Structures are given as C-alpha cells and as structure tokens.
C-alpha cells in the first residue's frame, strides 16, 4: 500500500551502526566517498570493497535489503559500462565491431566504474538504512549549525526536511484518494500514449496542490499556536551524544584513508 512507503528505507534493528551519532555517520559517508573516488588500482578497490563488506556486516541489515537498492541503478550502470567500454581508445585492441574498438584499457575502466558505482550506492544507502529520518535531520541541523553564523538557515532547512518527511505518507494517502475519486468519475490513467497519460495527471495534480497549500496554511497556524518562533532559543528532546563508538568509527575512517594513501605510495614506488 501507498501509506507503507518510507523514504530512505530505514531498517529498524539494533547494531553498532544504528547506535552511532547521525553526525558521525554523515561525516563517515562523505569520508567514504572521498576514499572511493581516490581508488584506482585493483588493490585499492579490494580495500574499499573489503571495508564496505565489513560495514554492511556490522550494520546487521540483510544483504538482500541493500542489493534491492541497486535495482533502480541498473540502467545507469549499464550505460556507464557501455560508454567506458566503447569510448576508450587507449590500450591494446581486443576486438573490433563496426566503428567501435574494444581495448583492454576500456574493459578495465568499465569494470572499475561499475564496481565504484555499486560500492558507492551500497555504502551510502547504509546511512539511511541505519539512521531514522528524524535522527538524520537532527544530525544535519547540528552539522550545519556553525554555518548559521554566515547566514545559512540551518534550523529552517532541518525543519523543512522533517516536515516534508512527516507529510510524505499523508500526501501519498491523499493522492491515492484523489486517483480513486477521479477514476470513479471516469478518468482514465492507464491508456493512451505518453502525452495523453501526462495530461491525464492534471486532474490529480490540481486538487493535490490545492490540498497541500491548505494543509500548509493550517499547519503554520497550528505551529504558531504552539509558540513556534524559529530556531532561536529552542531546545530538543532528542539528544545527540558523541560516544566511544563514534570515536572508534572516526579512527577506522582515518586508518582507511591512511591505508589508501599507503597503497598509492607503494604503487608509485613500484613504478619508480
């Protein structure tokens, strides 16, 4: 059902990764991406893959849950694979077909890109899988808060995100109702070409937007009634605490980065 959809697919269980401070995890993902884009040799990729496997194991999220997230990316991955395979002109030619030349360099590059994409998606999806949306917005707010001094509305950004998350299921439910109401009046959403189908969406979108504006208005009044006055002087029920596990995670991150740089120096030494 539409209302069961949760954004970001939070997987509720207990694990060291779930226990971490959302700030650590957000920083960790940024770190992870840097490391991943630094990787170039087979050994460096192996290190990154090993680390990813370790973190997945640590998260206690079933691997099937994580690979499911890869499905929507099959198209992009196929496209990247084909592009790298066919457009690389350096290296030794393996075979020739029409105007395309497939080289060993091309194959290596294509495989590396595919592995990088898979690791990237699996690693980053762990952030949303192990962090509830509300903890995530809380973490983002706190991470952005130093920037509020230079005018970044960090509290407002976090508030907008959490309200958006709150209203996704409500709006989904409403969309469902509108579709049923319009279908019962004889609206047809299933037949016709693409343009006709897009046009058929208008009777859904108009009431949906009108409804969303009405909701926004009512919510704003309700928030004011509960003394909402922006971020200044606000306290929070949720406590963010930097614990030993967070320190450990950051140390692991630094070790990983050091190992990656070590591998690079070794490789450079090998060439010289």
């Amino acid at each position: 059902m539409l209302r069961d959809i949760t954004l970001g697919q939070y997987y509720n269980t207990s694990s060291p990764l779930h226990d971490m401070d959302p700030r650590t995890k957000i920083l960790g993902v940024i770190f992870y991406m840097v490391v991943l884009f630094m990787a170039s040799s087979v050994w460096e990729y192996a290190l990154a893959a090993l680390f990813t496997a370790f973190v997945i194991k640590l998260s206690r999220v079933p691997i099937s849950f994580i690979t499911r997230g890869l499905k929507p990316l099959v198209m992009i991955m196929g496209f990247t694979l084909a592009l790298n395979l066919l457009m690389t002109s350096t290296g030794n030619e393996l075979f020739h077909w029409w105007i395309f030349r497939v080289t060993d360099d091309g194959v290596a590059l294509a495989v590396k890109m595919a592995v990088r994409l898979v690791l990237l998606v699996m690693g980053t999806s762990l952030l949303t899988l192990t962090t509830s949306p509300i903890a995530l917005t809380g973490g983002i707010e706190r991470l952005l808060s130093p920037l509020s001094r230079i005018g970044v509305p960090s509290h407002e950004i976090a508030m907008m995100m959490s309200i958006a998350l709150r209203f996704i299921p409500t709006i989904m439910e409403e969309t469902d109702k509108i579709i049923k109401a319009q279908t019962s009046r004889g609206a047809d959403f299933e037949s016709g070409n693409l343009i006709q189908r897009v046009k058929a969406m208008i009777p859904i979108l108009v009431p949906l937007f009108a409804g969303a504006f009405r909701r926004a208005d009512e919510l704003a009044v309700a928030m004011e009634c509960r003394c909402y006055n922006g971020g200044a002087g606000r306290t929070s029920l949720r406590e963010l605490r930097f614990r030993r596990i967070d320190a450990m995670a950051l140390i692991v991150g630094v070790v990983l980065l050091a190992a990656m740089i070590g591998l690079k120096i070794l490789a450079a030494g090998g060439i010289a």
Partner: protein
Amino acid sequence: MIKAENLSFSYESEGAEVKVFENLNIEIKDGEFVAVLGHNGSGKSTFAKHLNAILVPKSGKVTVYGIDTADESRIFELRKNVGMVFQNPDNQIVATVVEEDVAFGLENLGVPRDEMRQRVDEALNTVRMYGYRKHAPHLLSGGQKQRVAIAGILAMEPRCIVLDEPTAMLDPIGRDEVMETIRRLNREKGITIVLITHYMDEAVKADRCIVMDRGRIVMDDSPQNIFPRVEEVRALGLDVPQATELVWELKRRGLNVETGALRSAQAVEAILKMYENERTK
C-alpha cells in the same frame, strides 16, 4: 478568566466589508467547560481564534488571564496558557514520531531536556497514548492522532484548551475517545475547556452552552436549560440531542412524559416514569 468586551471582527471580501460579529461580550470562568454552538457562519470559529491571538480584535478587547491579546510582546505567554486543537489531526502534527510531536511546543519554549522528557511522558499518560510514544503518527487512527495533538498542548501546561470542532473528522469511536479525554482534563486537572462543536450530544456534556447566530449570542445557559427549548433551538438551525428530541416528540403527540432529558438514560427514565404514572392512575 477569559473576557471579551465589545469584541467586533470583520473581513473584506471583494471590496465589501463582511461583519463576523459585533459587540460581543463573553466571560469564561476558570475551570469551566463551555460549548460554543452555532451553524456555519455564526462566528463561533472566528471567536475561538481570538482567544489565543491567531486573530486580534478589530475593535473591543480580549483579555486572557490578564493578558491583552493585542499585546504582541506577551504573545508566547498567552499561547502557552491557551492551547488550541484543530479539526484536522493530520494538519497539526509536526513530527514523524509521536513523542517528538508532543515535545514540539516545549522545544519552542526552550524547556530543558530532563524536564521536557518528564512533561512529555506525563502528557502522553494523561491522554493514554504512552504506549504509542515511538509510533509514526500517520499510522494511528483519527481519535489517537487527535489525542496526540491534545497531549502536545497539554505538555505546555495550559490553563485553558480551545478545541475547534475536534471530532468533526473522526468516527464514533474516535469521537468518544476525544470527548472522554476532554472531560477528564476538565474534571481532574481543572483545565478550562472551550469546545466549538456542532454535535449536540457533545454539547450536553458541557457545564454551559453559548449559542451563536449571525455574530450574536442568542443563548447562554446550561444545556439543561437550553435544549428542552426544542423549537427555539431548531429555529437557529441547530439540532437537539436525540434523547431530548424523543421525549419532546412523545409529549407533542399527547403523551404525558416529562421533557428535558439530555442523555438516553434520562429519556429511558422519563418514559418509565410515564408508564408508572399511567398504571397508578
């Protein structure tokens, strides 16, 4: 004490001035349970919005616990004391977790975390939703959502709660849950309740009913004194409670029954008494 003196309000629509009400005078005592009745356009909702300065008087004055609602510097003090619950439970819940939503008002007021935790738990216990504190609000029933909304207000420890048709979108079970909660808050915690409603079966539970019609107060009395005046009430476009209607209809058709019942138990009693009288005659 809540006091409205010579309160007038109007809005502009297509260049013309539409008067909602004029020279309204209402006084609500501490701990009272007041139902405000009236059909659509009677001004009851607009009046409610004056009680915590969502609207400020065009002329006249509203004083709530000594605070003039037009005084913008004391608006948070005012809203802390007068909480408001609206019709649509979905459009007043801010957070994605029940307890976070209950804490919203306290977070805004800058209450320290330990105290907040305690007040949130207490409010959830009072509305009997503590077991749902970690739930996502969109998976709750309408009555449960509305109780969460009430808990969010309750955590701020208000002296008065204004409810603007809180049961209009609920099923009968949800309606009972909400009404039971409201009554308990009034009886046990002594919180002043202003209930805007068009369900007469809810109005009979109040200590006092204020009936509004086209911006005027036409009746202001206890439900026991208002509803037996069936014809007058109906002329104002309102219903009477079913029990009241039943005994009134019986009387009108020539049976010697005592009118004035507000609840079904009272109607049953009146009818039994009528038979008793017939027999002993």
